[in-house]
Structures are given as C-alpha cells and as structure tokens.
C-alpha cells in the first residue's frame, strides 16, 4: 500500500511511452555497487484498521493531560483550545497547501498570515512581526543573530539566568562557531537585578535577553532593564508569554526592541513539544533584518488589493551564504491556528484567560503556602506559574523529583523539579496553573500534596 493510483497495466503503458523496458531500468544511473539489494529492515505494512490499532496502542501508553491533572508548565501549557481552531485549521485547503510562492493560488494562506502578523503586532505592541519561526527556543537564537546584525556588535550577548534554559541552550548551540561570548548573569534572587545586568552590559554587547514572566514564573523589571540596555546601545530582547499580555503591559510599551515568544499557548496542542510556534516581532527600523517569511500587502495588475511574500532578498534562497537566517520552512499551520485562536478570543477573551490563570494560580499558591509544606521561591509577583521551595520538614524526606513521581500515582502532573534547570534550586518545584484547572482539582491537589509530602 503506497497510495499509488496507477495499475500494473497503466504502468506498463507508461513505460512504453517512456521507452524503458522496466521501472528498474529507470534507476540505471545508480551504479549497481551502490544499490540496496534487500528489503529495508523496517516494520509494516499495515492495513488502515491495523495501523489504527497499533498507533492507538502506542498512544494509550502515554498518559495525557486528559488522564492526569496538569500543573506542569515550563514553557508548554495546558490551555483550552476552542473547537473552531481545530475545525478551521483542518480545512485541507489550508493544511495540504505549500508555502505561498504563487500568490494567485495562495491568497487564503497569504491573507491569514498577514492577519497573523497584524495580530502579533497588536498583541506585543511592536511594529513588525514575521510569519513564524520554529518555536520559542529557536526564536531566541534567531533574535540574538538578528541583534548582532542590527547593532553590528559581535563582542557578547548577555542573557539572564532566569531565561528558560532551553532557550539559553539554543542560543549557545547556534552561536558556538560565531564570534560573540555569551555572558549569563546569575539571578540568585530569582530575577534579573537591573544593577547586576547593567554591570554585564558594555559597548560590544549586541543584546540583553530576558524572559518575562521568567522561568520561575516571576516578573522581571522590564522597564528598568530596557532603560539600562538602551543607555549602552544594547537591544532588549524580551521573551514573553503571549497569554500574559491579556493583563500585563505590552513589550512595546516598556521599550523592548525584539520580542520573541513560544506561541504554543495560542491554540496549539501540547503534542510532546512540537510542532510549536516561534513568534517574533520587532521595531520598524529593523524590518530588513528580521528572519523568516514576511507577507506584505500590495496590488495586482488591475489595482486590486492582495498579498504576497515580500522582502525575500533577506532570505536564503536569494542571499545564500549572506542571508540573515537559514530558515525556510516555518510553522505556517500553527501560525494559522494562533490567528484563529486570537480572533476567537478577542481582547476580552484574552483578558479573561489571563485573569483566570492569574486568580487560579494565586489560589493554588496561597493554599499550598497555607499547608505549611512549602514557601514561595522567590516571593515575587507572578502570573500563572510559580516556584515553591519545600520546607525542611518535607525536603529531608523527599526530593522534588520523588514528589512529582508520587503525585503521578495520585493522578497529577505536579510541576517541574526546578533544580534540573537552575543551580541552588534543588528543593524547588515550579508549578503552572492555566484557566482549565478548577477549584475542586486544586483543593484535591493540595490534599494529595500533603499526603505525599507528609508520608
């Protein structure tokens, strides 16, 4: 079964037209010594009903957030996805189309991505957004490359220790063979102290990369960091949670130069880490340095408004080794989903989602604090995610990893052991609460947590 239409007799007729004796003869340019003369050692074939059973069995060996109550975040969040996002994005006119190189045959996707760019600009308060990057971590690496190109500074990159470690790793992996040094500013207080940040910045620094809310869930002092960065000609790269922008100030309002985000929370499923959605937006003057595809509005030969891929001279297929980035394929379908999601939410829906996350997260945090088993670490303003430190009475018995494992048996994804990511946080657990959680789930979570911790 290979979805091939042509029958044996049709294939024979085709070979006659070609003038080839056999299909095998068409492969004659491949030297015999290089041919594989056995079957590949791979499984299959499976009829559709058998495939469906096999894949169903594999899926059932995973426990989803439908089975386990999810308080796990760390960059991937269990937000609600309205049915219309699935229905519309699964229109096969969208999902079986290619990159919209032929504008006349792609106005649907082109307009959808133009709308996406507009929505991301409105959301972040920035002037320009691209049509998506792979994910939040790779967007961080792209932002750093872009900042180097914009500023012409190749000396160093400064990142906060409270930037998601996966983003920090992506930056250091991509920069491994390029000029700049990466300086990570320690954040023992659980946030980037602007004075400490300022000490790291100099006139060879291309950018300062900060995440808000940060990897522990706490808010950073973005306005002051922007001020410090700009005073030294350094760009502020702000990595944000798009849902938080329902209540928090837009990055454009506190002076961010480049905004990046993991867009998974905007209508995209958890899906074990991908496909996700890299968002990137920037100020107008950097438009010719932004990586990735851009959709522009123009007119056709009859003066009719329409949309095209534009500023392609930045891109690899034109610029080759001089391109601003090597990105080609992006996350089109997931950008479409995000556009639909934001259109369904509107300003009030986004605000309600953000408020619901905030209120529920604070309810759970307060309830856990009241149990006397944990304390907030750090005790700072947070949005939907927070980090707790186990009290000594608990920590002497259990590590956060053990608590997580034991909470699994109670039916919970209890959070992420923070110590995997940050030094000095070995007794900590980072917990996320989305709008999907209910009071009942949280009350029972705290009871289960107490049972496990006191056992």
């Amino acid at each position, binding site marked *: 079964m*290979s979805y*091939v239409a042509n029958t044996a007799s049709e294939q024979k007729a085709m070979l006659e037209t070609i003038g080839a004796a056999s*299909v095998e003869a*068409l492969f004659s*340019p*491949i030297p015999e010594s*290089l041919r594989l003369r056995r079957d*590949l050692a791979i*499984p299959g074939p499976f009829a559709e009903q058998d*495939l469906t059973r096999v*894949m169903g*069995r594999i899926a059932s060996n*995973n426990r989803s*957030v439908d089975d386990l109550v999810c308080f796990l975040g*760390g960059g991937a969040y269990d937000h609600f996805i*309205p049915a219309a996002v699935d229905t519309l994005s699964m229109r*096969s006119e969208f999902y*079986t*189309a290619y990159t919209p190189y032929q504008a006349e045959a792609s*106005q*649907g996707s082109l307009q959808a991505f133009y709308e996406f*760019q507009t929505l991301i600009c*409105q959301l972040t308060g920035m002037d*320009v957004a691209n049509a998506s990057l*792979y*994910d939040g*971590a790779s967007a961080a690496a792209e932002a750093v*490359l872009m900042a180097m190109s914009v500023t012409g500074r190749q000396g160093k990159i400064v990142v906060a220790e409270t930037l998601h470690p996966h*983003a920090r*790793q992506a930056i250091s992996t991509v920069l*491994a063979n390029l000029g700049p040094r990466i300086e990570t500013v320690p954040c023992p207080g659980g946030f980037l102290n602007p004075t400490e940040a300022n000490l790291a910045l100099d006139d060879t620094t291309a950018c300062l990369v900060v995440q808000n809310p940060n990897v522990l869930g706490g*808010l950073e002092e973005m306005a002051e960091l922007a001020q410090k960065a700009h005073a030294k000609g350094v760009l502020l790269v702000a990595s944000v949670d798009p849902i938080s*922008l329902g209540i928090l*100030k*837009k990055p454009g309002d506190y002076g961010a130069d480049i905004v990046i985000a993991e867009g998974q929370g905007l209508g995209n499923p958890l899906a*074990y*880490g*991908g*496909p996700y959605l890299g968002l990137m937006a920037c100020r107008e003057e950097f438009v010719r340095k932004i990586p990735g595809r851009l959709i522009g509005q*123009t*007119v*056709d030969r009859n003066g009719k408004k329409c949309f095209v891929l*534009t*500023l*392609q001279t930045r891109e690899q297929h034109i*610029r080759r080794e001089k391109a601003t980035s090597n990105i080609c394929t992006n996350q*089109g379908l997931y950008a*479409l989903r995000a556009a639909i999601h*934001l*259109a369904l939410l*509107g300003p*009030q*829906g986004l*605000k*309600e989602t953000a*408020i619901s996350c905030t209120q529920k997260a604070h309810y759970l945090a307060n309830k856990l604090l009241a149990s006397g088993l944990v304390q907030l670490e750090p005790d700072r*303003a947070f949005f939907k995610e927070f980090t707790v430190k186990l009290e000594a009475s608990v920590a002497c018995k259990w590590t956060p990893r053990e608590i997580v494992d034991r909470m*699994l048996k109670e039916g919970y994804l209890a959070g992420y052991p923070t110590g995997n990511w940050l030094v000095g946080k070995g007794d900590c657990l980072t917990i996320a609460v989305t*709008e999907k959680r*209910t009071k009942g789930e949280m009350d029972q979570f705290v009871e289960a947590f107490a049972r496990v911790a006191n056992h």
Partner: protein
Amino acid sequence: MDKNQSTGLLFEISRPGRRAHRVGAPDVPEIPLETLFPGEVLAETPPALPELAELDVVRHFTNLSSKNMAIDCNFYPLGSCTMKYNPKRHERIVALPGFGAIHPLAPDSVSQGILELVYGMQKILAEIAGLPAVSIQPAAGAQGELTALLVAAAYFRHKKDYRTRVLIPDSAHGTNPASAALAGFEAVTVKSRADGLVDFEDLKSKVDNRTAVFMITNPNTLGLFDGQIAEITKLIHDAGGLVYLDGANMNAILGITRPGDFGADMMHYNVHKTFTGPHGAGGPGSGPIAVRDFLEPFLPSPVVVKTNNGYALDFDRSLSIGRVHGFQGNIGVLVRGYAYILTLGPKGLREVSEQAVLNANYLLALLKDAIEVPKGDRCMHEFVASARLLRREKRISAMDICKGLLDHGYHPPTVYFPLVVPEALMMEPTETESKETLEEYAKVFKAILAESAETLHHAPHTLGISRPDEVAAAKTPVLRWKN
C-alpha cells in the same frame, strides 16, 4: 476555489463588543489584580484584537481557505517540494489525546508510548539512511542542515583538526550555503558540468585540508543521480572531510540506495516531504538527521534510548552540541511519518520511489518535445525544463507558463530554481498522481505554450487576482493592518 469572494480583514469586520470565546469568571475567590502586581506592569486595556462573533471567525477563515490551491483540490507538481497525498488516517491518529495532549516535560514513566515511537523512528530513519545514529530534534530541513554542520564542527574541534570550509555545488538549495555560514564555515561553490552533475575536476581543485564538509544533494536539484558519488566521497574522505547529503530528494531512492552506502557521513530528512507530513502552507516541517557512529556523541541532547526499564530521554551527553529546539522536535510530524512508514512497509516504501520516478519520467516523456529539458531525457523523481528558447523566440517566460497553468486549475512547477538552468521549471509529480492526471496536465501545458505571449503576459485571467506588484510590496512594505 472561489476566487471572487471578497474577504475583508479581521480588523475590518470587527465590531466593538462582539464576542466569540468566553472563559467565564474563575471559580476561585478573586483577588484584585492591583494587589498582586506592581501597578506599573499592568496594562490599562487588553491588546486591541478584533472583536467578532464565532460565526464571523468561522466564515472568515472558511472563505479564506477557498482562495488556496492545495493537494486535496489540485495537481501540485512543485519541484523539490514532494507534494504527495497526505493520508487522512494520519490526522485522526495524531489527534488522539495520547499524542496530541501529552506534555513534553512529563516524566518518562508516563510517556512510554511516544518514547517508543521516537525510538522506533530513530531506528527506521537510521535503516533507510544506512547511518546508525539519529536525532529527531531539528524542526525542518534547514535546521537539520545547520544541526549536522554544528555536529561536524564539534567533531573537528574535538579532534583538534581545525577546518574552515564547506564545499557546495552551484545547483544546491540556498539553505546549504546559509547553514554553512551560520555554522561558522566559509561556503565555497563547486561548479556543475554541462550535464548537471558535479564537476569532479573543479571539486578536486577545491578539496584540501581546510575542507570540513562537502554538501551534496543526490539525486540533485535537477533530478539526476550523480553516479560519481563513490569517487566523490572517496576524494572527500581521503582529504579528511565529511560528506553531507541533503535529503530533500529522498523520495527517489527509498530502499533503492542508501546515503550511508554511497559514502555520506551525515544527512537530513524532510519528513514533511518524503513521509508526507502535510505542508501546512509553509510548515511545520521535521528535519531529523542521521550520522555515522563516530559523530553520534555530538548529536543534540536529548536522544531517546532503550533501557532495562523501557524508554528514556538521555541527557547525559557531554560532547553534545546542545539543543536546537525547545523540546524534542516536531513530534506531531514524526507521528504522521511513522504511521506512513508503518502503512507502507519495506516494499511499499520502495514502491514509492519506483512510482515517483516512473511518474516523473512519464511526464518528462509527454513534455520533452514541447519544451526544452536541457539535462537529458531521463530523470529520477523530478526534472527541470527550461523556457529559455520560448522566452527568446516567443517572449514567453517560465513565469508566464506558470500563470497560464493557474487558469487551468494547476498549481505551477517551481520556477527559477535551480539557478544553473535559465528560465527553470522544476516538476515533481510524486507517486500519488495518476496517469490521466499527468496526461491532462501535459495537454494543458502544451496548449499554454501555443497561446499568444500577450494572453500569457496577463495571465491568470480567471482567478481573483493577477500578477501582484511584488516590487511595490518590497519597496514600501505594508506588513500589517493599521487603524
């Protein structure tokens, strides 16, 4: 597609106060936000997103979808993109909560199914490549290229064998030189011969102890298998370099020949092409890499391993280049690819390549008397025609032909690529198209060549728009709606 439907922008159809999705008040006691946050961080109003009812949104995007060509509606012979049928069964499978609703940071103990699948996919991709070690982390082909080149750089650094250059044929995709530059190498171009294959003498003159990697696409972007590949790989290996295979054209050689067997040390796959993850109007892709055993320690972290207790993510990799993706890669695309490979099995996978090559040769045979095909009358899975003579003699360019095809309901071929063929029209029919589809397309294609230049210069005539002004779009970019 309904070409004439007018579809205003979301922001233009927005009406103050309209709502679609409602979250409702939280079921917990509310604390005033002003007491939770310092005042200066709170926004006075939420972002000015459009305000719409649910039907507004549904109708808007449904109508937009009708302004696209897509595989499910149209023959789409876009060369190098492998626009094959995207099986519906994959979409149902990938939407199972056990795939769609699983958290990437969940403990391995509750992720055994997906880890088993990824482990299985690593093994399958290794077998098809003839290269034993696989990382599924890269999210697309270009990221796969970059990842592999970073692996190569780490390998040479580890050996204290400092090499600075990556050699790339002039027929290569633009991502190759862009990836080489990003990985810190100097990209050096190698010429092609008149017949489209690598100019071995030119390559030889450029290979030396500075050569880190030679990147080759084989079959190449002209749809030709370079039979010199064994000599080429020997030349590179003798000079201490590595050979990278751009796997964009794997659809031609599945189970026929293996990159590892013809001397490649590293390669990337485009799972979204070869193993039919839908293209999604530009993504997501999935670009796993396969490498030789001596490069395995440098692969991104984590990889999936099999242990006594089942499957696990292995982060304990001291020589790893690190991470190129936030989590484990574009898993959803890999689930589809895995389902596809399981459906086909070994014989079915080889049949894919056999039929893709048969279809391409059939289309070539139907068209070769009507339009110049400069690099021979046989091909692998795709071929490149040239409108060079038509342009000179009849003022019909490759783009004019494309625009003419649009009027007949066909998505055009890839144009103006590869750069080594003037007025290039690159056609890849894939294995899933029927004989009569190819015949009908060829008939239309020939009829278009007989049309007058004047008619074609203004094509398409039947779609909603025609010939957007791309120069104006780039000169004064309008990249967003503004109030």
